[in-house]
């Protein structure tokens, strides 16, 4: 599941004469967009390993740390970062684990092994969500147009993660890097909401010169090779 965005790619090798399995992300049609330099930039962060972990941190936190190599967040609404591995607090016994795609399978196996005997649940949700990176000194201001969350630095410090409605779509917002000039948020949204939110975010950035984004209607299928040229 983690490696495959389409069902057709589950087979080992495609029969002779067929094209290789295609992969795409929810925002495969979108190129990163930017307003005036330094103001607001939108980009998709495709293909990452994502897991929902249900675990009582009081009884299983230690075992998780040994298996995963990082702690569970000690307080609500916080995140823990270790290199490219990130853990979000989603609820008192629920966490979102983010790992590079290449490590995802081994990571899940290690966590399952480490938590054997613990009451827990680990679900691969890599293909449920995608992440939109919102960066620049107007990032806070643009997001404020979409949500009722208090995004002032006092109420939303670096490392903060909060679930809320963004232009009526549910998502998880994480402040990865918070210096005023280089604020960098990540918004984790469901696949089916991604294009809608992309367009709404671009609309919020119109006043700083972000180009208008037309909602995808007649999408054409883009392959992974096309997609990877985005970066």
């Amino acid at each position, binding site marked *: 599941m983690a490696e495959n965005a389409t069902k057709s790619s589950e087979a080992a090798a495609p029969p002779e004469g067929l094209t290789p399995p295609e992969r795409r992300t929810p925002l495969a049609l979108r190129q990163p967009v930017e307003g005036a330099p330094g103001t607001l930039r939108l980009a998709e962060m495709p293909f990452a390993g994502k897991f929902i972990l249900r675990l009582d941190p009081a009884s299983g936190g230690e075992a998780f740390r040994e298996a995963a190599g990082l702690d569970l967040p000690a307080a609500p609404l916080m995140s823990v970062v270790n290199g490219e591995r990130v853990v979000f607090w989603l609820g008192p016994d629920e966490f979102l684990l983010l790992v590079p795609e290449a490590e995802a399978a081994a990571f899940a196996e290690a966590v399952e092994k480490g938590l054997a005997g613990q009451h827990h649940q680990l679900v691969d949700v890599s293909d449920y969500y995608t992440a939109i990176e919102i960066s620049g000194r107007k990032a806070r201001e643009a997001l404020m147009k979409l949500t*009722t969350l208090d995004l002032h630095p006092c109420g939303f410090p670096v490392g903060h993660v909060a679930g809320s409605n963004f232009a009526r779509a549910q998502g998880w917002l994480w402040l990865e890097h918070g210096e005023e000039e280089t604020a960098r948020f990540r918004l984790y949204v469901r696949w089916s909401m991604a294009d809608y939110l992309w367009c709404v975010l671009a609309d919020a950035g119109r006043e700083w010169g972000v180009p208008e984004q037309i909602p995808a209607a007649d999408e054409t299928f883009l392959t992974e090779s096309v997609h990877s040229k985005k970066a």
Partner: protein
Amino acid sequence: MFVISCPYCGARDQSEFSYGGEAHIARPEWREDMSDAEWADFVFMRSNPKGVLAERWVHSAGCRRFFNMLRNTATDEILAVYKIGERAPEVQAKLPATPCGEAPIGSGNDAVKVMQPGEAE
């Protein structure tokens, strides 16, 4: 629109929450001879006070946890928020006076003036 304090996430806008009905209503133990009236009592009958009501809410856009709340239905004042499984705390509420001293029932009765303590009739 008002602000609700989730016991896990803190103060958030009401639009992030969904209502879950009156709290502390226990599902009856299943019995062969249970009457329709008993079942209907569990399913339909609610206290519906004009005053303090214990109710369930769920933080549907945030942590998606259910929790309990004590709310004064006459004034919409949120008096306490507490986790599922906990007992309702003791609270002080300004209960509305009713014109002829009848029981303060029926939260939707706009014709009944909400009297504040000490206010002359």
